[in-house]
């Protein structure tokens, strides 16, 4: 357990996980990876438009986090959210249809890449305003505490978002009121073209919790088991009513900030360093090396994932765009709201 005032870098005890757990992590990471590779291809064909930020490289966080929390916990995150949403249970066909802007998308084609929401899975959305979800996640946790549940809210944000004042206001209130919120900073080293070290003298982002005495840890985000263990510790603490917990999870995005960013501010060597630790590749190697799966069994998983993603594209292609009249739905719950329509 981390102490309240000192941040700690996790020294992992060797824990062994079930065969199913390893397969589950691998399969989820692969599904996210393949979904997004396809999304990028579809962007190239102009079937996906607008801003599109992919999670490629960061998948171990979604995998390790989901296996450590419960379905009745809530999640809110930013716009780099395909992976988090799929991990939460958003089906890939509805996710792909959303990217295509189709009426069958997870938000009826109204949100696109940045804004999936799924109330059946307590997925409170992808937020496009950097840092806005930090107080919102704190409020979602507030509601859980208010209703007397032992659910928590995972509130995810980037290293760039960590520089918004909203983080400090939220950390303070969450600690003061012992709110059941798990803050996760997905530190991928960059906010657009700005590296972490160019935005503050505090580059060790796990330290941000210290001035509020919030239990804080730094976690290896390229390893789903490390994420799983840290989130498990955090969740135990939070569910015991002890208040918030903060994990800085160190990760990397292989691609540019969004589709339009050539990411010239990074060296090839730096990118390669992380790719050498690619969570999908390493998980695959482990499955084989530890004889959890045979080559043939692995092939079956890969074929299933490929079929799932191909089917998602077919579904998206075949679906209609929302009718123009949908512009006037979902603005107010009042059904006869008098819009200005001159």
């Amino acid at each position, binding site marked *: 357990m981390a102490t309240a005032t000192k941040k700690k870098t996790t020294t992992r005890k060797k824990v062994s996980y079930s065969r199913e757990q390893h397969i589950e992590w691998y399969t989820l990471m692969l599904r996210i990876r393949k979904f997004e590779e396809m999304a990028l291809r579809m962007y190239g064909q102009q079937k996906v438009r607008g801003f599109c930020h992919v999670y490629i490289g960061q998948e171990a966080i979604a995998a390790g986090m989901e296996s450590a929390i419960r379905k009745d916990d809530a999640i809110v995150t930013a716009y780099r959210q395909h992976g988090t949403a799929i991990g939460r249970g958003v089906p890939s066909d509805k996710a792909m249809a959303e990217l295509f*802007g189709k009426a069958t998308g997870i938000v009826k*084609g109204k949100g*696109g890449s940045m804004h999936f929401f799924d109330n059946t899975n307590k997925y409170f959305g992808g937020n496009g305003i950097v840092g806005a979800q930090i107080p919102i996640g704190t409020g979602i946790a507030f509601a859980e505490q208010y209703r007397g549940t032992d659910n928590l809210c995972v509130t995810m944000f980037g290293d760039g978002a960590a520089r918004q004042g909203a983080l400090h206001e939220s950390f303070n209130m969450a600690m003061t009121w012992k709110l059941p919120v798990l803050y996760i900073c997905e530190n991928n080293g960059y906010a657009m073209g700005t590296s972490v070290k160019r935005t503050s003298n505090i580059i060790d982002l796990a330290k941000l919790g210290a001035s509020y005495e919030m239990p804080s840890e730094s976690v290896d985000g390229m390893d789903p088991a490390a994420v799983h263990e840290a989130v498990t510790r955090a969740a135990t603490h939070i569910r015991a009513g002890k208040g918030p917990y903060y994990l800085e999870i160190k990760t990397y995005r292989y691609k540019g900030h969004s589709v339009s960013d050539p990411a010239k501010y990074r060296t090839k060597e730096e990118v390669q360093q992380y790719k050498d630790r690619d969570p999908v590749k390493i998980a695959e190697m482990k499955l084989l090396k530890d004889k959890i799966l045979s080559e043939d069994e692995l092939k079956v998983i890969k074929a299933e994932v490929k079929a799932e993603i191909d089917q998602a594209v077919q579904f998206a292609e075949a679906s209609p765009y929302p009718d123009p009249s949908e512009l006037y739905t979902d603005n107010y719950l009042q059904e006869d709201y008098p819009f200005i329509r001159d």
Partner: protein
Amino acid sequence: MPRELALRDALNEAMSEEMRRDESVFIMGEEVAEYNGAYKVTKGMLDEFGPKRVIDTPIAELGFAGIGVGAAMNGLRPIVEFMTWNFAVLAFDQIVNNAAKTLSQSAGQFSCPIVFRGPSGAAGQLAQQHSQTFESWMANVPGLKVISCIDPADSKGLLKSAIRDNDPICMMESEIMYGHKGLVPDGEYLVPIGKAATRKEGTDVTIVSFNKQVLTCLDAVPELEKEGINAEIIDLRTIRPLDHHAIVASVKKTNRLVVVDESWPFAGVSAEIAYEIQKYAFDHLDAPVTRVNSADTSLPYAPTLVDEYMPNVEKIVRACKEVLYMKA
């Protein structure tokens, strides 16, 4: 010889010229320095002026806008770039509660010569949070001046005027217009704040617009001509103070007015213009003023919904026919 320049380069020239002229001018914002600007408006400025005057900030809009306000109160002339005005919402406290009110609160002892600038308006399928038009929000605030223009030559002259102006200015650009080209005069020139420009003379109807919708209005000209309509097109260039003299003078000639305003209809720029015209040109109007706005809704992602939401040529033609009592 006038040169053909893209809007981003014209704005870059305006800032660079003013920074050469006045040591107290500097620019700060997200990605303005090493990345050369999210939309490359500040390209090369770090190289020329160095990190003291071209400053990358963390993502902290409220904080760096406030730092701009304080610096302006203490003798500097900051240019604060917002990646888009959608993110400036986080800084409204500093813009509205401080920049706009410093002069009044201090009874003239402190002024706030600052330029807040960045893109405003929808830019395709960017969905609800990234597509908003902020001219009417900012223009509602006494103490602020609001410029909104995408013509490269005029934008350059207006931005130079803004940097020299002693009052706080909000400058609205457009991310999809940064590559828009126009002829820009050589040498030093300023364009005055508060003066509209006539983009096309006409006799039958006045169309008033601003920012990129001026181009939609110009695109409507051939369609209008097919209907036998000769429209006069006015580009406001400045929203506050509003050049209602220019609009009134035009309406006295055409007797009909259509406002094409990408902001939402409720309490938008178009509403203000309609008020001014019924007040100052009532006797010259042959039809009620009408307007083309964005829809009275949030803007979703799907292309069908973007089309339904945005002003377009068809809607402009329909509005012109309405004020001319022509069959739709």
